């Protein structure tokens, strides 16, 4: 068990190193680097360029810059943004909680709703209830999340103007307003994610429901509800949990879009702003945080697996 944990952690560290090196190298190699953004393209002398490059440390070779950047990043210091002039770490510290809250709420919401719905669909496989569930699925596969978001925005602003707070309010300022400002983003992203959970649970449950031990349990007189929710779900759980790790990746991509639609000051929006202002240190930092979140959740899922499935121990 200890060896497995170690192996997984090593793999995760390797992936993170590779991603950070890749993002850092690509950000540094493309033409029109930071200096031209800061100095401006016209009217700057070569000396001014050289001066700015020296100040930013861009005159050193790439591997040296990467190692020093990585060393600083490991201590939580991502440097100062040359565009905003603020410390990147403090910007991240404000953005991460917003995104984390939305992601956590989405996973909780989608699991609470998607799990029973999936079980229901599996138990009623190929009957009317199942068709309704699968119809919703086909719809969500063909409607992009930003269309869902905009439609919700349209309906919300028109028919429930008081219900939905569109602009973001932090929890510390006004908890009630905060909850109201999070409702629409949550609904937008939770809708397709729940549908995915539902589909996954349905598939996993269908496989298990045909196993002999289910028949045995039924024959032994165990109540149907108990068979469905306890016996079957218990052994369908490992693939479902693995899937949640995969889903988290999709969720991260969706977060960026949702934050943009509803102007949430989260990590995704920070990244987009940085992309548009060519703020490469910020882009690299946010990309790394996203990569870290994705890798971390997958390591956790991998480690949960043997706990849920004794055969894997």
């Amino acid at each position, binding site marked *: 068990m200890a060896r497995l944990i170690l192996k997984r952690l090593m793999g995760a560290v390797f*992936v993170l190193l*590779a*991603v950070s090196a890749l*993002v850092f190298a*690509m*950000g540094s190699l*493309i033409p*029109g680097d930071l200096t031209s953004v800061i100095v401006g393209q016209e009217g700057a002398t070569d000396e001014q360029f050289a001066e700015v490059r020296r100040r930013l440390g861009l005159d050193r070779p790439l591997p040296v810059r990467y190692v020093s950047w990585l060393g600083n990043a490991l201590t939580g210091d991502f440097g100062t943004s040359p565009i905003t002039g603020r410390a990147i770490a403090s910007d991240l510290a404000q953005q991460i909680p917003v995104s984390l809250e939305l992601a956590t709420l989405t996973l909780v919401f989608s699991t609470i709703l998607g799990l029973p719905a999936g079980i229901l669909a599996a138990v009623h496989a190929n009957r009317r209830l199942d068709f309704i569930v699968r119809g919703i699925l086909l719809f*969500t*596969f*063909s*409607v*992009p*999340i*930003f*269309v869902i978001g*905009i*439609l919700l*925005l*349209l309906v919300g*602003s*028109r028919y429930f103007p008081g219900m939905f707070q569109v602009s973001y309010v932090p929890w510390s300022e006004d908890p009630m307003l905060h909850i109201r400002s999070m409702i629409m983003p949550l609904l937008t*992203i939770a809708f*397709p*994610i729940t549908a*995915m959970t539902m*589909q*996954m649970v349905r*598939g996993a449950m269908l496989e298990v429901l045909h196993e002999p031990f289910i028949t045995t349990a039924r024959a032994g007189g165990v109540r149907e509800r108990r068979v469905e929710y306890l016996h079957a779900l218990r052994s369908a759980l490992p693939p479902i949990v693995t899937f949640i790790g*995969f889903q988290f*990746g*999709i*969720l*991260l*991509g*969706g977060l*960026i*879009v949702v934050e*943009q*639609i509803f102007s949430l000051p989260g990590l995704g929006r920070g*990244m*987009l702003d*940085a*992309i*548009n202002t*060519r703020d490469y240190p910020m*882009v690299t930092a946010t*990309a790394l945080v*996203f*990569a870290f979140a*994705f*890798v971390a959740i*997958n390591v956790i899922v991998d480690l949960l697996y043997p706990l849920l499935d004794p055969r894997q121990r």
Partner: protein
Amino acid sequence: MNTSPDIGVVSKAPARFRLPRVPFLRDLFRHKGGAFGLAVLAFFIFLALFGHWVAPYDPNASDMKALLSPPSEAHWFGTDVLGRDTLSRVIDGSRIAIGVAFISVSVGMAVGVVIGIIAGYFGGIVDSILNRSQDILFAFPTLLLAIIMVAVLGPGLVNASLAIAIVYSPRFARMARATALSVKSHEYFDAARLAGVGTPVILVRHMLPNVLPPVIVLAALSMSTAQLAYASLSFLGLGVSPPQADWGNMLSKARDFITVAPWLVICPAAALVLLMLAFNVLGDAVRDVLDPRHTGSGRAPETL
């Protein structure tokens, strides 16, 4: 006693996939989803090619007398804040939507197939290096990776398509590699080598035709998500540059005027959803036709 060696008896690759020839198109038309998908796709391709003549207005011309005008006889789906006709812009945007989907998937497919065949054929160090690097790419969620790529390459139509192609190449490489490995174990392959056929000829004549059919199925299935990924990038402002009309971009602008001009949303959203639905259904149809053994309809989306 059978002493004659089996020279000339070409052992067939498993007949799981057939090369797409004319019967393929016929089967596709008979497939009820396929016919619908093809029809919608043909409609959009027509708009993409001849939209210039079909569109009622110049997509970029602004009519200062009709700013943000609601749907009317003159402008069926209204006008935007610069007085540009929404319908014309949606028609013009179909060029981008169709083009990006086809180009990014084709480039991703070409790159992936080359990498996959090389990895599968040569094996050894080349294989493990390619596999490792592809694994890292493969581990990442599609949209997130595409955004990171665009962040690094810089926004724009070409870069966005390129990013999507890069993101999509590993899955093609995986499939090509698996098929290449299975081809290598067949007798006709050994026969060709023993007959002294050169490596390039073997790769093109014997490897490629076997590798392509499963890869084409994958390409068909990837079209809808590639289009969606581009629309998302464009919605986030990482796609085309402003005057050019583009569905994702239009929706992003429409969001700003959602309370005063809700009609701006309808047309681009409908076009986007319709084309995605067509790609989805068509992808399933192509798979059903080329790979009849596959059953079940469940597949997970890669992007939102």
